[in-house]
Every structure is written in structure tokens, then in C-alpha cells.
């Protein structure tokens, strides 16, 4: 499909308005707020041709969703929308309800982010799809239901006839999103806007849903606007990309152009700050400094200038417009209809010719840090080079040590494990709702897990939601008690200790949370938050104060910020506060529960770098819990993959990603979208079907067999019996590392 659509791009690049299905011109959206007007979208223009797929990429608050809501006329009444949006030549901005209702769902349809809340809980799935048909076609109820059935088949829902009569709560998230796609497809619209359609889903389900979207689109020939923050998703599924920042489009062009030859420092920076599955682990990430601008106080010139390493006076004074660079290096305006053009809103975009993210953001990073932290950076300038060379030497040593270490851990001898887990089991009771709260079943969250965490290493625990990884993390800290099994810290049996006995040991074992908004008490100042563990362990006030200053400095925060409250900080800064709190008692082990998954990409990189540095400086051991294999590949020394409460494969990061042996690991790696258009479209994939079964009633034998592609396609009837009857052990089956599959075979995927 890549080639054909790319060809159609070339053909249509000569302006001809006949096949334009969506034309947006100078669209601006302003919301009134207590602190003045909030310009969420500013002068966005683009066209979309028949059958084309356009990706809109941006971080939270960039205005990418608001733009599409404005086109659909779904913004709240107090929003002021200016400019024009034409669907098939018909203006839709400012239409009254009756008029826009004829366009919505008929010519242009939309898919929303959260499938769990997108469907009305009190109507059946069939009714809600048929309703979409009936809204635009005068057909009977029966005919509409028949069409609904057809649509469910189109989006690949198993047992469609039965699903029609079910209510949304009886369907999994992935299924529900397919239903939403079916609703969008109901009237064969010309344009579909998908607003973060897979963000709320697990990666393996994301792959399925994107496939369903793709096939449905092929069927109806609809053009697609795919809004997402995930560069990988964009790379694989669209022809053209628009990058949004601070409410504006700052770069547009064919997807290969933007990904391989970005012309706007922001796009370049985004690519550089992304941990990648297809790159080596010791490549340090290059974060973009600062945070996305507040729309209330947009800077005068280029919105990105305050974070841009190549910003000059001009950038702070004059906002650049979206221009293309001509053959002769001149910056020229191109008509919006010229969809083949590569445009960027940067005064100096020609300087980015052939630039790598590291070139631009690495050098300036140090400079900016120097100016930012003031006193602490007195060592800058000349001293820096010395520090740097020392750093290098140290680095090499560490790399060596790490290589040794991983060699040792592979065969389980040598270094001593600091934290060990043996046959850990945790069942949560399911209780009835009545007065008696009878036990009516149990969720087998963790079913027999053994792990070793060695000193100064990062062990990643990976899996999709509900696999028990967070429960395992909390069991290791004894924040919840196990049903059975053992947890030992340096030979001391944590599992049999009382809370009182555990107290002194808690100093050594600390936790960093996923959600930087929920993990800090909103009623305490930053200093109090960071000092809390010290106070709990009875440190004197003066001592605690001194330590807090140290800690804030350590995680890269301004010491003066200690008297402020959490809500005054951005997500990345809050996460740093959380890290500082965890470090307060000089722990030996940090358990990191999805520490970066709630953060924007450009912020995420900074926190990852911080964690890596802290580990090196303080000699910490990390248990890194995550669903994101790209981040894991970047940060971890060893990886354990979990599925439904069990570890299915474990090994060094290198082994596991080079030669994954368990079908689930393979599927997981396949499902991670690569932020590289060519690689993403040509890579080999191992796809799983369906959703994760309920942990209250896991399948017999191998728990993965119900979704296993090997079980479904490769194995013979007699071979399958073993999968059904015998739970596979976690042992090395000749691939060099342990896996839990009776028929495992290493496959190279990246």
C-alpha cells in the first residue's frame, strides 16, 4: 500500500481541487479562561485528498485534538472558532446544528481516544451502530441491524452476530474501539478523524486495532487524519505528517521527509528524545530542554524558541511562517494544495540540512544546564572538559563492569543478588457486594514468580496491563503481603517480618510511581514531601533541611523551589520530586513503577537520563516496571517478560531483543511501532489475536495459548495437547536464556 499511495501523492501534487475532501484554512480556536483568552489553535491550514492518510503529531496541549474537534463542530459553545474548514467543498465552521448533523457521521466521522467511555453504557452495541446508519439513511431497523453486522465483520470482531446484542461493558477495550471504528465507517465517510485511537490500549491490542482501522479504510476508501503523540504509529500508517507545537503546525511534509530530514528543530528534537527499539542501548537520549509553552503566555516570536538550541534574536522577535525550502536554498511559500511539499516554520531551517539530534541538542544541553543551575555549575567552562574526560574513562570502566555483570547473571554465579524473590504468589479475593462480602473467587495476580535483582543493575519487568507486574513490585516492597512465596533482601526474609521489623529496612528499598500528579500530596510543599521519609525515620529538622537541598540539586531542581506546592510544577519536574523523595534515605534499591509512561516524549528523555546518571553515581539497583519495550531496551540490563502473572521469558536485554524465543515476547516486540517509516512498513511481524484473558480464570496449561500464533497456526493437534495440559517451565531451551514455551524458537525481529 505504501508504494501505491505514495504514487498517488506524486500524481496529485499538481494542484487540482477536485479530489480534496478536507480543506482547513487559517483555523484558529480560542477558549475564554479566568486568566484571559487561551489560543489553543492558531492558523492551522492543511488539505486532505481522497484516500490519503495524514498524521498530526504533537505533545499534550499542542492543539492537535482541538483542531479536529473544531472541524467536527464538537467544541463547547464558549470556544471561538475562526477560519474555515471545508468538507467536500462545503464550509462546516459556523454551521447550525441541523446542517452540521448532516455532515457529521456521513461525510466526516471521528474516532475518540478512550473506548471505555465512548459508547453509551445503556444501549446495545448493535443499537449504537444501527443508530449511526439510521441517522443518515432512511432504511428500516432490520436493514440497519444487517448493516451493523456487516460492519462488525469488517472490523474483524469475532462472533459479530452475538456481539450485536451485547452491551459495551461486556466487551474489552480493544473490541469497543473496533465498534467505534465500525460506527465511524457506517456511512462510508470521505474523511475519518482518529484522535489518539490506540493510546488507551495495550500494544498488542493497539496493533490489532490499527490493522482493523487500516482494513476498514481500504474497504471504504476514506481519507484519514490520524492524531497521535506516538511517532511510531504515525510512521507506519500515514502518507504525510504535520507536527504541531504551541497550537500551530510547525512542520508538514511526506512522512519519509519529516522523519529522515526534519527541517524544524522541534521535530528533530522529538526524534532524538525517543528511546528506540532499533537502536543500541548505550546511545544516550537527547532531551529537549524546558517544557511546552503555556498557551496563556506564548512567547512573542517562535513558540519553540525558549527551548531551541539554535534560537537567535530573530526567533524571539518574529514568529516564522510555514515555508518550504526551494532548490536554491531560498525559503518560499507554497500553496496548501501542494501536498508533496515539505514545509517548516523555522527561520533557519536550511541549517538543519543533514543534522542529527545529537548535534543540535547535545552541545547546548550542557550550556543551558550551566546557566540554569547557577551556583552548582561553577565548574562549567574550562573545568568542564576535564570533568568530561574523567567521565569518559569512568564510563568505559562501567561499561566493562556491566558487561561482566551481565555475563555473570546469565549463568547465575558471581555477583550476589541483593533482592531475591522465590515462587511469589498473590491472589486477590473477589468478594460479593452484599453485607457479608463473601469470597466468590480470586484474581490470580501473581502466580509463582522468581527473580533476582543484582547490585548496580537494572532489571526490567515488562508486560501489558493486568499482567501482575505492579503487584509484583509492591510485593517486593511488602506494601502488600504475598499469598505464598519468599522475598529476601540481602538474606533477610522480608516476607516473614512484621511491619515494625520492616521499618528500618524500608530505608534501603524505595519506590517511584507512575503518575507524577497523584504521587505527591497536593497539600504539602516540595520540601516537606522530599523530607517526609527523613522525618518518618526521625531525622532532626536541620539535618533534613540540608539533605533536601542536596536532593533537589541532585535531581536537577532549583533549590529555591522547595517552598512551592506540587501543582506549580510540570509533569517532568514532579517526577523528579518523586525521585528525590525516593532517594532521601539513601536507598540501595529503587523500584520504578512505570516512571516515565505518563510523561510527554520530550520530557521523558530527561527523566530517563537522570535515572541512568543516578544509578551510576549512587550505585543503585533498579527494578524497572514498564509496558514500554523501547524504554526498557534503552535502560535495562536484564529483562523479565510477564504474562498473566507468570514470567514467560527472561534474559539480558541484548539476548532478549536480539533473539526473543517466546511467542509472546516476539509479539510484544513486533507490536511496538518503530519511529522509522521504511523499517516500520517493511518489518516482519508476529501478531497475536484477541485480548488478555481474565486473571480470575486463566487458561489451563500455558496461559498464553489462547492468543498464541504458534499454537494457532504452527502446532499439530498432538503438539497442542502439551500446551493445554502442561504449564511450561521457565528453563533454557537452547536459546541461551530461559523461556516458558514448550516449543520456543528464537526469532530475529529487529
Amino acid at each position: 500500500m505504501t508504494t501505491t499511495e505514495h504514487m498517488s501523492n506524486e500524481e496529485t501534487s499538481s494542484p487540482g481541487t477536485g479530489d480534496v475532501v478536507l480543506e482547513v484554512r487559517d483555523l484558529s480556536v480560542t477558549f475564554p479562561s479566568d486568566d484571559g483568552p487561551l489560543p489553543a489553535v492558531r492558523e492551522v491550514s492543511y488539505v486532505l485528498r481522497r484516500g490519503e492518510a495524514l498524521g498530526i503529531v504533537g505533545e499534550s496541549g499542542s492543539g492537535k485534538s482541538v483542531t479536529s474537534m473544531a472541524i467536527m463542530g464538537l467544541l463547547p459553545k464558549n470556544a471561538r472558532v475562526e477560519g474555515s474548514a471545508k468538507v467536500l467543498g462545503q464550509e462546516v465552521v459556523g454551521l447550525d446544528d441541523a446542517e452540521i448533523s448532516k455532515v457529521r457521521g456521513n461525510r466526516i466521522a471521528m474516532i475518540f481516544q478512550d473506548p471505555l467511555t465512548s459508547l453509551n453504557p445503556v444501549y446495545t452495541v448493535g443499537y449504537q451502530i444501527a443508530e449511526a446508519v439510521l441517522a443518515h439513511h432512511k432504511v428500516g431497523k432490520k436493514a440497519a441491524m444487517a448493516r451493523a453486522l456487516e460492519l462488525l465483520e469488517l472490523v474483524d470482531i469475532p462472533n459479530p452476530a452475538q456481539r450485536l446484542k451485547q452491551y459495551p461493558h461486556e466487551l474489552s477495550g480493544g473490541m469497543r474501539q473496533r465498534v467505534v471504528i465500525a460506527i465511524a465507517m457506517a456511512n462510508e465517510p470521505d474523511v475519518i478523524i482518529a484522535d489518539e485511537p490506540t493510546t488507551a490500549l495495550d500494544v498488542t491490542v493497539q496493533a490489532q486495532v490499527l490493522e482493523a482501522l487500516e482494513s476498514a479504510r481500504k474497504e471504504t476508501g476514506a481519507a484519514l487524519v490520524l492524531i497521535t503523540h506516538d511517532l511510531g504509529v504515525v510512521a507506519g500508517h500515514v502518507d504525510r505528517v504535520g507536527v504541531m507545537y504551541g497550537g500551530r503546525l510547525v512542520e508538514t511534509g511526506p512522512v519519509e521527509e519529516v522523519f529522515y530530514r526534519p527541517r524544524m528543530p522541534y521535530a528533530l528534537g522529538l526524534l532524538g528524545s525517543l528511546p528506540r527499539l532499533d537502536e543500541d542501548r548505550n546511545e544516550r537520549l537527547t532531551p529537549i530542554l524546558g517544557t511546552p509553552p503555556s498557551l496563556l503566555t506564548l512567547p512573542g516570536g517562535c513558540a519553540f524558541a525558549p527551548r531551541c538550541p539554535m534560537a537567535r534574536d530573530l526567533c524571539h522577535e518574529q514568529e516564522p511562517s510555514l515555508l518550504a525550502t526551494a532548490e536554491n536554498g531560498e525559503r518560499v511559500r507554497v500553496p496548501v494544495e501542494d501536498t508533496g511539499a515539505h514545509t517548516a516554520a523555522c527561520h533557519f531551517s536550511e541549517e538543519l540540512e543533514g543534522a542529527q539530534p545529537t548535534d543540535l541538542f547535545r552541545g547546548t544541553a550542557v550550556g543551558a544546564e550551566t546557566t540554569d543551575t547557577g551556583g552548582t555549575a561553577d565548574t562549567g567552562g574550562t573545568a568542564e572538559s576535564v570533568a568530561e574526560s574523567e567521565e569518559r574513562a569512568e564510563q568505559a570502566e562501567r561499561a566493562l563492569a556491566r558487561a561482566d555483570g551481565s555475563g555473570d547473571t546469565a549463568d547465575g554465579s558471581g555477583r550476589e543478588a541483593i533482592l531475591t524473590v522465590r515462587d511469589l504468589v498473590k491472589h486477590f479475593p473477589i468478594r460479593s457486594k452484599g453485607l457479608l462480602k463473601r469470597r466468590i473467587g480470586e484474581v490470580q495476580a501473581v502466580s509463582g514468580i522468581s527473580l533476582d535483582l543484582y547490585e548496580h543493575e537494572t532489571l526490567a519487568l515488562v508486560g501489558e496491563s493486568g499482567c501482575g507486574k505492579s503487584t509484583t513490585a509492591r510485593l517486593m516492597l511488602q506494601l502488600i503481603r504475598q499469598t505464598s512465596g519468599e522475598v529476601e533482601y540481602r538474606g533477610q526474609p522480608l516476607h516473614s517480618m512484621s511491619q515494625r521489623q520492616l521499618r528500618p529496612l524500608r530505608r534501603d528499598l524505595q519506590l517511584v510511581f507512575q503518575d507524577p500528579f497523584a504521587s505527591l500530596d497536593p497539600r504539602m510543599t516540595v520540601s516537606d514531601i522530599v523530607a517526609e521519609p527523613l522525618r518518618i525515620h526521625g531525622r532532626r529538622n536541620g539535618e533534613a533541611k540540608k539533605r533536601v537541598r542536596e536532593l533537589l540539586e541532585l535531581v536537577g531542581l532549583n533549590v529555591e523551589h522547595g517552598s512551592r506546592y506540587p501543582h506549580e510544577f510540570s509533569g517532568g519536574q514532579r517526577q523528579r520530586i518523586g525521585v528525590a523523595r525516593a532517594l532521601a534515605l539513601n536507598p540501595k534499591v529503587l523500584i520504578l513503577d512505570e516512571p516515565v509512561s505518563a510523561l510527554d516524549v520530550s520530557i521523558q528523555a530527561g527523566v530517563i537520563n537522570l535515572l541512568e546518571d543516578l544509578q551510576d553515581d549512587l550505585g543503585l539497583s533498579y527494578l524497572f516496571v514498564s509496558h514500554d519495550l523501547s524504554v526498557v531496551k534503552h535502560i535495562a540490563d536484564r529483562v523479565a517478560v510477564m504474562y498473566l502473572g507468570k514470567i514467560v521469558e527472561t534474559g539480558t536485554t541484548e539476548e532478549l531483543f536480539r533473539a526473543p524465543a517466546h511467542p509472546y515476547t516476539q509479539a510484544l516486540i513486533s507490536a511496538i511501532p518503530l519511529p522509522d517509516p521504511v523499517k516500520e512498513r517493511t518489518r516482519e511481524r508476529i501478531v497475536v489475536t484477541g485480548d488478555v484473558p481474565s486473571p480470575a480464570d486463566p487458561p489451563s496449561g500455558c496461559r498464553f495459548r489462547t492468543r498464541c500464533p504458534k499454537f494457532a497456526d504452527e502446532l499439530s493437534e498432538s503438539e497442542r495437547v502439551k500446551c493445554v495440559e502442561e504449564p511450561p517451565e521457565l528453563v533454557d531451551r537452547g536459546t541461551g536464556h530461559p523461556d516458558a514455551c514448550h516449543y520456543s524458537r528464537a526469532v530475529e525481529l529487529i
Partner: protein
Amino acid sequence: MSEKKAPVAPRSADAESVGGAERTQFQMIVSRFLRHRAAMISLAVLVVIVLFTFVGPLLWRWDHTVHLEVPPSVPPNPDHPLGTTTAGHDVLGQLMRGTQQTLKVAFTVSVLGTVIGSLWGATAGYYGGRVDGLMMRVVDVFLIVPLLVMVAAIAGNVRGGTTWYAVALIISFFAWAQIARVVRGVVLSLREQEYVEAARASGASPGWIIVRHLLPNAAGPIIVAATLLIAVAILLEAGMSFLQFGIQPPDISLGQMISDARTAVSTRPWLFYPPGLMLLAICLTINFIGDGLRDALDPRQSMVRR
């Protein structure tokens, strides 16, 4: 690629600017409350009413009892701005005393009900599970009880007359359930907050968590509920007195004044309207203040946009 370089001291990788106003939370709450115009006006009116009832009797020559010098059944005049009753009470004196009694009852109920309700709700929410189930079932029973009927039945059944504190006690006994429900809900959700888990991971005791985290964060909803409970208590007390089961003569309360003046709406309106308007004014101001507090203390509003 040995690019992995870690500058030792300056590690502020993202020099994220601290956004938002540099105000403390308390200041923000106050400023949000000040912006709620209805609540501000109400607060002013309520202050005037409180002064009128507690300071007024010290300045006014007539109290709420019968005086021989007070001419019976006189319409409002300079000597008796609100007129007099047939028995020879000065209505202004009665109004001050009645309002005073009403407010004393209402504030006592609010304090007692909030204390009982908070303790009950916090215990249920903190322990959860079966304890929670049983405790909340009791709350359910209290919630569906017709309050006025219940307090009237008890107060009317009790031997001898009832004083204002007896009335307050009886109302408190039945009116704490709403508070318990609010507090339990808040504590239940706070208990699951990650910052509470972080404290536990550092080895904090349950007492530490309750004092340092749960109470400060539950304070907002508790204050709002306690405020609204005042209005509920006022109407309950007035209803009881109207049915003659509340504060007994010779003491006076607003409900009793209305009850006495019931048949005289057209003939002696000065007896009927003042106590009713006073009740209405107090309840209305308290409801608006509660609304303003809710706006100011609502945790969802204290979160900045992500």
C-alpha cells in the same frame, strides 16, 4: 559510542520553568472564595445576623419574656420596631433570642455531627472491607430515616421539656450520617493515592498517614459538608419547634414563633413574617457560603491543567 556522558553537578536536564502563579494554596483558596460573589454577600449578611443576635440583646431593652410595660398586640412602632404579641412580648426581643437559640443549636449540631461523622466515616474508609460494609450499612439506615420525624418523636417523647442543648444532641444523633458518607468516600479514595503509598513505603505508621495526609486532604469536603449541615440543622430545629416538640416555653425559638403566629398571618403579620424571613435568610446565606466553599476547596479545581 561512548556518548553517555554524565556531568556530575549540573544535572538539570530540563530547565523546565515553574509555571503558574506564585501563591500558596491557602491564598488560592481564599481568592477563589472571594470571587464567588453570592458567597461573599452571604458571608457579610450572616455576620450581621450573628452580631444582631448575640450583641443585639445587650443593647436592646426588651428580652424575649413577657413584660407588663409592653403593650399587647401593637403593630410595629418606634418603641417596638417589630410590634408586640397578644401576650405582651416584644417581637424584636423574641427574634433576637429565637435566632440565638437556633444558631446555638445549629452550630452545635454541625460540630458534633462533623466530629461523629468524620470519625465514623474515616474509620470505615480507612479499614475498608467488611468493617466498611457493616459501618456503612448503619449509615445507610440513618440516611433513609425521615430526620424531622425521628427527632420530633424522640424529643416529644422525652420526659419533661427540652432545652436547646438537648435538642442539639438529639439532632446530632441523627444528622451525622451524611458527613460520615462524605468522609468515608474521600478517605476511601485518598487511601489509594500514590502519595499515601509512598509514605507507607518509607515506613510511615497509620497514625502518621492519617494526620499528615488523610486529614489535610479530606478537610475541604468536610468543611463544605459541615457548613451545609448547619442549614439542615436549622430547618430541623425550626420544624421541631413548629410542631411544639423543640425548645419549650418560656424560652423561644423561631419555629415556635411561626407556630404561634400561624393563625394571625392576615391580622397581625408582624408576628408571622420576621421569624420566617430570618430563618430563610440564615439558611440561604449558609447554602451560598457552602457553595462558595465547595468551589474554592474542590480538589479538582486546585489541579492545574495538564
